[in-house]
């Protein structure tokens, strides 16, 4: 089981232990005092943590988050981490992400394409501790490889691979193996787990930059 940093706790919501972080509520999640529940059914990173994947977190990390969408997951990341850069390509979810960013001091929203890191290398700093990636595009492995430039030498990649984005017709396990294979020049994979049933046909991957 992952050792949780101070900023993340297991707390009881609706009669069972669930993850929680401290921050302003974002998507109508249940709260307990200043703690708000991190819904693993709506967050792939939440599901990876709840499944006990070997993720090394200490709090205060510098984070690049690719595919921030409307900010459901990145809001929790910014609650426990340090400077958090949130890249999202679509304008409509960005409108909601902006509200999340307004309520946090360490969240920097960028309306950029994660496949083109040159367009935000002048803003996002180097030597970050975490690269979190949840993008629904073909070529998810090359996005992770291209963005490794932002990670420190032993920085971690937390990746949710969506099989259907690569090839709708192929067997998900085949797709996952291909994506992981493409990562291995740049990253050393330390853990991989399916995120079913909360996220169908998704694979959670934890890896370290080589």
């Amino acid at each position: 089981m992952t050792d949780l940093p101070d900023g993340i706790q297991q707390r009881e919501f609706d009669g069972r232990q669930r993850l929680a972080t401290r921050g302003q509520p974002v998507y109508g999640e249940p709260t307990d005092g200043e703690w708000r529940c991190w819904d693993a059914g709506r967050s792939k990173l939440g599901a990876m943590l709840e499944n006990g994947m070997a993720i090394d977190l200490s709090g205060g990390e510098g984070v690049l988050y690719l595919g921030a969408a409307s900010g459901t997951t990145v809001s929790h990341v910014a609650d426990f981490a340090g400077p958090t850069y949130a890249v999202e390509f679509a304008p409509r979810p960005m409108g909601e992400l902006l509200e999340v960013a307004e309520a946090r001091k360490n969240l920097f929203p960028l309306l950029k394409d994660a496949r083109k890191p040159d367009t935000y290398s002048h803003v996002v700093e180097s030597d970050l501790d975490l690269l979190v990636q949840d993008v629904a595009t073909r070529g998810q492995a090359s996005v992770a490889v291209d963005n490794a430039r932002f990670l420190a030498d032993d920085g971690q990649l937390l990746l949710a691979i969506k099989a259907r984005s690569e090839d709708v017709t192929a067997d998900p396990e085949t797709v996952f193996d291909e994506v992981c294979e493409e990562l291995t020049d740049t990253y050393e994979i330390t853990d991989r787990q399916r995120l079913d049933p909360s996220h169908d046909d998704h694979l959670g991957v934890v890896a370290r930059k080589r």
Partner: protein
Amino acid sequence: MTSNAADSGWFESVDSGDLVAADLRAAIRTGAADAPTDWPTAAVDAGFAADTDDYYATLREATIEAAREAVAEREGADDQQLLHAVRAMDDATRTANELAERCHEWAATQFADVDSGIDGARDVATHEPTDPVEERIVSLAERIDGLATEADELREFIKRLAPEVAPNLAEMAGPVLAARLISLAGGLDSLAKKPSGTVQVLGAEDALFAHLAGRGPSPKHGIIYTHPYVNGTRPADRGSAARALAGKLTIAARIDHYSGDFRPEIHDELADRMATIRARADDDDGNDTEGSDD
């Protein structure tokens, strides 16, 4: 820090003594670098920020403002502008061609070897007129050249605008056909509300109403005939191809109207379906078996 623009941080183009919001936004939105570096330290060293906390506070303000501005611009790219642009392009093209015919007919009375069409008119426009008649002909040809150029520029404009207005529809149909579908429906919202059978025959209204009045077969396709998935499929399977394409175009229009995010999977699903439909032709060629899977 280097002075090479490709390797400089966003803050280096901003005057730190006088933080102007517009400069901050532009620096985030338009800059680029080959590689990141420790920008917070670099900014403090360069005197842009007093310390890293100060840097992050400015960065936060700049990124939020830049994203807000970019969102407002992208959402301002609305379907009605696209509708007007594609109608203007068609009018400009049609008018240029009509005038080019007139110009060809007239110019042939004054000059030797005049080609027909837009290219012919552009040739005529290069002549140096020597009398009042030639002056009028050359002037007319210049207008045709300008009109045809405007049509080309409108087409380029549509190619840029359509992916912002309707990313999935533009990817699937191509930007110009996407704009035509929006134009025929009267807007993206009304296109999103149409059943797929209607989308399939948009632009074939004459044939459709003739059919409804009992005077002809039902049309298999309207404007979507211009899509390679339809016109590149053998005639026997074009009905299936048009139906499959229209179904996915309808879904694409609904995603674009109600959600706005790009979904690669619907494009893959259509490609897969088209491969199945086209495989029927191979099956028929090969062993004469029925290739239908409907």
